[in-house]
């Protein structure tokens, strides 16, 4: 009897640990992480041994960072059941406003003050478009897709209009520190291993991105507001019936996304030290696709910050691998499209199987 009992116990233990593995493997983030590891190994074996190696990785991070600022709030917006195409327009408008403000006010005030003013003006543009988006969708009950398509064009048009065919580049010199300053540089001199691992050369945008990722994770998973985002996206009416202020969730989501896009523009202006109105292209689809690859559902209620981070990594890894492997860059979009197609098809498949959890 006792033996039998023991046997029984081990078998259930095994079953439990097996199902734990299964559950772990059913997590989108884990699946994606495995895909990224396999992809990296394949690229390294396929002719780019330095891919994501110690030299490449810090560069890779600083390339991903500006998009990362936008993908986090975009993922949260998607989880809340919304959608924002206008981010590219906002980012470009913010770039142009930076250039325009510098060209008008350079020399009229203290440099630091001017930089603060420039950043404030850029962020305000994002704030305004975000409020317009949020107001249109919540109060006027306009469709988010068409609304943000319209505000995208308006913001982009305003960018080219203000630029007036010029790309301004007479900036305050220290403005470039917003994108180029390396906060750990001095630390690298004290701790050589930081230098060896090239951590000490990481520029500011990587740290902005880290802060945004942490804040996004904290808000989404550890605050009532985060659970309200999920609730609003899962069942807007049901959430409202239970006292969730779904309009507030949506409005804040649009404002955060708009301001993040503006910050992305400011970082680009600083990196380029010039302000062309077409600095960013395809940002909206890049971040939306990244969030979806990371498990965010266009129907809302699902997704995660970690998934969005990994999804964006994947998008940039494909781009980076195309270049490093010497493949024709013209095919990059084909590969990105195929990856997105696969991700969405996989979603549909696992939903039919009821296997995602």
């Amino acid at each position: 009897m006792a033996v039998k009992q023991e046997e029984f116990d081990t078998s259930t233990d095994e079953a439990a640990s097996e199902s734990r593995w299964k559950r772990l493997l059913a997590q989108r983030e884990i699946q994606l992480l495995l895909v990224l590891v396999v992809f990296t190994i394949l690229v390294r074996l396929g002719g780019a041994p330095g891919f994501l190696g110690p030299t490449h990785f810090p560069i890779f991070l600083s390339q991903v960072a500006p998009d990362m600022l936008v993908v986090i709030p975009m993922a949260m917006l998607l989880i809340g059941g919304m959608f924002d195409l206008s981010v590219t327009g906002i980012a470009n408008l913010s770039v142009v406003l930076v250039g325009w403000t510098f060209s008008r006010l350079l020399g009229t005030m203290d440099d630091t003050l001017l930089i603060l003013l420039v950043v404030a003006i850029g962020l305000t543009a994002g704030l305004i478009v975000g409020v317009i988006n949020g107001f249109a969708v919540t109060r006027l009950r306009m469709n988010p897709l068409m609304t943000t398509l319209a505000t995208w064009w308006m913001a982009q048009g305003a960018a080219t209009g203000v630029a007036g065919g010029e790309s301004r580049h007479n900036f305050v010199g220290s403005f470039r520190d917003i994108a180029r300053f390396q906060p750990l540089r001095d630390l690298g001199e004290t701790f050589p291993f930081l230098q060896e691992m090239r951590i000490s050369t990481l520029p500011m945008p990587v740290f902005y991105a880290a802060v945004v990722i942490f804040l996004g994770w904290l808000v989404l998973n550890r605050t009532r507001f985060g659970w309200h985002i999920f609730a609003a996206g899962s069942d807007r009416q049901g959430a409202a019936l239970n006292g969730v202020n779904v309009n507030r969730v949506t409005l804040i989501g649009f404002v955060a996304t708009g301001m993040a896009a503006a910050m992305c523009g400011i970082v680009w202006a600083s990196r380029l030290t010039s302000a062309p109105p077409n600095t960013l292209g395809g940002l909206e689809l890049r971040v939306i696709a990244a969030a979806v690859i990371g498990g965010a559902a266009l129907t809302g209620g699902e997704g995660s910050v970690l998934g969005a981070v990994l999804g964006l990594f994947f998008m940039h890894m494909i781009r980076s691998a195309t270049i490093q492997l010497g493949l024709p860059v013209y095919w990059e979009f084909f590969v990105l499209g195929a990856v997105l197609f696969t991700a969405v098809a996989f979603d549909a498949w696992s939903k039919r199987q009821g296997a995602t959890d």
Partner: protein
Amino acid sequence: MGAPQAEAREAPAESRGEKPLLVARNIEKAYGTVQALGSAQIDVRAGEIVALVGDNGAGKSTLIKVLSGAHKPDAGEIIVRGQSVTIDNPNDAFDLGIATVYQDLALLATRDVVANLYVGRELTRNGILDRRKMTAEANQVVRQLKTNLPSVHTRVRHLSGGQRQAVAIARVVHFGAEILLLDEPTAALGVKEAHEMLTLIEHLKEQDKGIIVVSHNLAHVFRICDRITVLRHGRTVGTLIKEETDSTEVVRMITGADLL
């Protein structure tokens, strides 16, 4: 034996010397020219299950909506714990401890049981979600109701119809509902699940809730309820004590056919 004298057979809780949790008297409600409720009466005590039965269009749903604050009555009186009250909206009902569980449950399919129990009323500590406490309390609520769920971290999407209903009921009970209005709780369920749901409703009764159940299924009604209130054409034609009646009589009152 002649036609049953429904009024003479009425058995309101008051007349039996126990104080009812909720009494609704002479409730009237018209939608335009359609008189949905003429003179509806119902009452329920703590630890009692009252079935509300009637043919389609008899006014069962309307009466439930009036009691839950979704619709305002044109006339009539609602008394909760001895106090005359007005219920203008679902929040008023909630404050009075009245909760309704509708057939379409307003649950969040992509969220787990814990998130569903606490949606809109999440617990926090220093501004951060107290997930440990919510999980512990959710486990306790689920255990109390003796419902069987795989885990409180299962997403509602993966639960059966009966389990979902249990979550919906657990939610209102956890937030202090003492008067439960259940709209067709077994209609969408299979045999086994319906049985589990009835058992759950009986557990609620043991916990001294006052429960009004709308149901078409007389077998279910007779299994769990103490009294049966019959509506016909928006009027309460009678309230019967289960032990003193049978389904033939109830059907006769529902249809209004004086067959014998």
